Structures are given as structure tokens and as C-alpha cells.
């Protein structure tokens, strides 16, 4: 392995950016491919698959054998709002492999009694997200219904290109939210990425069912990353 390649790979991994290490098993040459880099042919197809699935594999391409080692940051879910839905969502998401952090400045809601074993911040999103910024391997679900708490986080999630951004509220509530986000400087195309009403349409009624809908939508967003641009996902 090239020492510079190892150094670069570790930099990407530390910064929570996805990278695929491509090693030619014939001559040992290696290189880093970052998400979004264009690689042609069969090798490019295999690299795109590695980014999407996170699975590493040996592939035959152009008459050679390559090993693709996929280094994807671990996805996580940030929930704005220590509410009833979040109580169900936190353990479900953790089981599905998405560690959860919950942010809610309302200390009556954000208590360890209501959220055992969850990373819980009884603080404003402004403070927490400055300390630990959002990134493209983070999903954000805003479920407080309170613009004072949700709006900053939603704008930050759009700016950080979170792979999933969802906001609780009816279409009417969302229409007002869109106005506020435009006033905060968000672009219309950015705002169109927000899933609202939140969650896959499975007819969810109870808080736990809504949590299932949100988690399913998060997983779908994660596994279809990059496909929107090619029109493969509606």
C-alpha cells in the first residue's frame, strides 16, 4: 500500500467522508476514489455499488482483478425533539444500525428517565450542532412542531447535505415552514429535499408507528443515496 494513500484514506475516514480504496491485486497499485468521482466502465459500476451498499468485494474488470474496500462513515440519526415518537424511534433506529442523538432544549422533555441509554442533549440545536456538525452521513428528523427549535436544525441539515431530512407536521404546517426557511436563506431546491409530512406513507397512527415510518424512510434515503441525481428514484 502506498503510504500517501493510507494517510489520505485515514484523513477521509476521520472526517466522516466516504472513500473506496481500489487495489489492483495483480501489481499491488492502489488509489482512493471519493464519492462523486467519475470512474468509467465495469470498474466504475462496481465502485458505485460499493459506495451505495458499503460492501467490499473483489471484482474482475478490464481483464484485471481489483479489490474494492468500501470505507463508509457510519450513518447516524439526529432527532430534534424529545417527544413520544422519539422514545420509540431511538431504540428501533439503534437496532437497525443507526445510532441516535436526541436534541431538545425543553428540560421537561429531555430527561434520562424518558430516554434511557440514548445520547440526549437538553440544549438548543444551535449549540449542539456547532459542537458536532451534521454531515452527509447524518439523517435529521425534526419532530418538535416548534419552529423555534426545528427551523435552525432543518436549515443546518440542508446546508450540510444530510442524506435524509424529515419534518413532522401537516401540509399546511409545512407550507408555513417553507416560507420561514426561504426567509432564512434556504433555496427552493434545498427545501424540496425535506420529507414532509414525515415518514413513509404506511398509514401510521400511533407515535411508535410514526417512528417505524420515519425509520423506513431514513433507510430508504440511505440506500438510495446518489440515485436521485440519475433519475433512478422518483
Amino acid at each position, binding site marked *: 500500500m502506498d503510504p500517501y494513500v493510507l494517510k489520505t484514506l485515514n484523513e477521509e475516514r476521520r472526517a466522516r467522508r466516504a472513500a473506496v480504496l481500489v487495489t489492483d491485486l495483480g501489481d499491488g497499485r492502489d488509489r482512493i476514489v471519493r464519492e462523486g468521482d467519475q470512474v468509467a466502465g465495469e470498474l466504475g459500476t462496481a465502485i458505485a455499488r460499493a459506495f451505495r451498499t458499503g*460492501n*467490499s468485494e473483489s471484482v474482475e474488470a478490464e481483464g484485471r482483478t481489483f479489490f474494492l474496500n468500501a470505507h463508509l462513515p457510519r450513518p447516524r440519526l439526529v432527532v430534534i425533539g424529545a417527544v413520544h415518537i422519539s422514545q420509540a424511534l431511538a431504540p428501533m433506529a439503534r437496532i437497525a444500525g443507526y445510532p441516535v442523538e436526541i436534541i431538545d432544549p425543553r428540560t421537561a422533555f429531555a430527561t434520562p428517565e424518558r430516554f434511557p441509554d440514548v445520547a440526549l442533549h437538553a440544549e438548543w440545536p444551535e449549540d449542539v450542532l456547532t459542537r458536532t456538525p451534521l454531515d452527509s*452521513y447524518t439523517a435529521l428528523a425534526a419532530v418538535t412542531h416548534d419552529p423555534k427549535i426545528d427551523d435552525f436544525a432543518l436549515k443546518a441539515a440542508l446546508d450540510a447535505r444530510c442524506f435524509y431530512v424529515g419534518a413532522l407536521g401537516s401540509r399546511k404546517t409545512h407550507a408555513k415552514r417553507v416560507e420561514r426557511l426561504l426567509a432564512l436563506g434556504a433555496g427552493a431546491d434545498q427545501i424540496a429535499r425535506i420529507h414532509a409530512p414525515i415518514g413513509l406513507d404506511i398509514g401510521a397512527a400511533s407515535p411508535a408507528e410514526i417512528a417505524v415510518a420515519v425509520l423506513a424512510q431514513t433507510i430508504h434515503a440511505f440506500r438510495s443515496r446518489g440515485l436521485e441525481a440519475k433519475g433512478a428514484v422518483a
Partner: protein
Amino acid sequence: MNESIYLDEARDPLIIAEGWMKDGKDVAIATVVETWGSAPRPVGSHLVIDAEGNFHGSVSGGCVEGAVVTEAMDVIGSGKARMLEFGVADETAWQVGLSCGGRIKVYVERLG
């Protein structure tokens, strides 16, 4: 289960390999590149080895690490990468094997 979203720098093989390199040590990196059947560590897993035989990480459940470390010392010496294959102990030419019944292919290369 490690739930941190950040690298566990004290135990991450590739971070350790980079640290060894900075300390001027000779290093080999072993990577699981293929598995068949039941395999204890997934494709992409690393074992990193220095010239004194210190190692971190894993390519199996401890079954073949000893053999990989020995091979790695040769690779550090020669600079030539090797592909190793391990299966059930008595079905392969290797003295060590995987009791789980799986087979793995491990690529061993020198860093630099």
C-alpha cells in the same frame, strides 16, 4: 457493539499502521479480500503487522492470525505482496485453518 460514529483510533488497524509508519517502522497490511461460507470476519477486515511481529486487528477469529503474521514478516522483508488462502485445517496445505468450515483469502502487502 461499538456505537460510536467516530473512529476508535486506539484500536483501528489502519490508524495504527499510519502511526507505526510515522515512527519509522516497517509495516505490512493484511486484508480479507474474499470469503466463502461461514467466515468470522467480513471482507475488507484488516490485520496490521510490524517487523517485530506486533499486530492489531484481525482477519479471522484468531485461527489464522499467527500464520498471517509469519507471512507478513517475509512480505516486509521482500516487499512482494502475497495472496494467502485458508480453509478447514485438514483440507488445505496450510497447517492452520478455520474451524468454522469457511474459507478466506487474505492479501498481504507491505506499506511503502
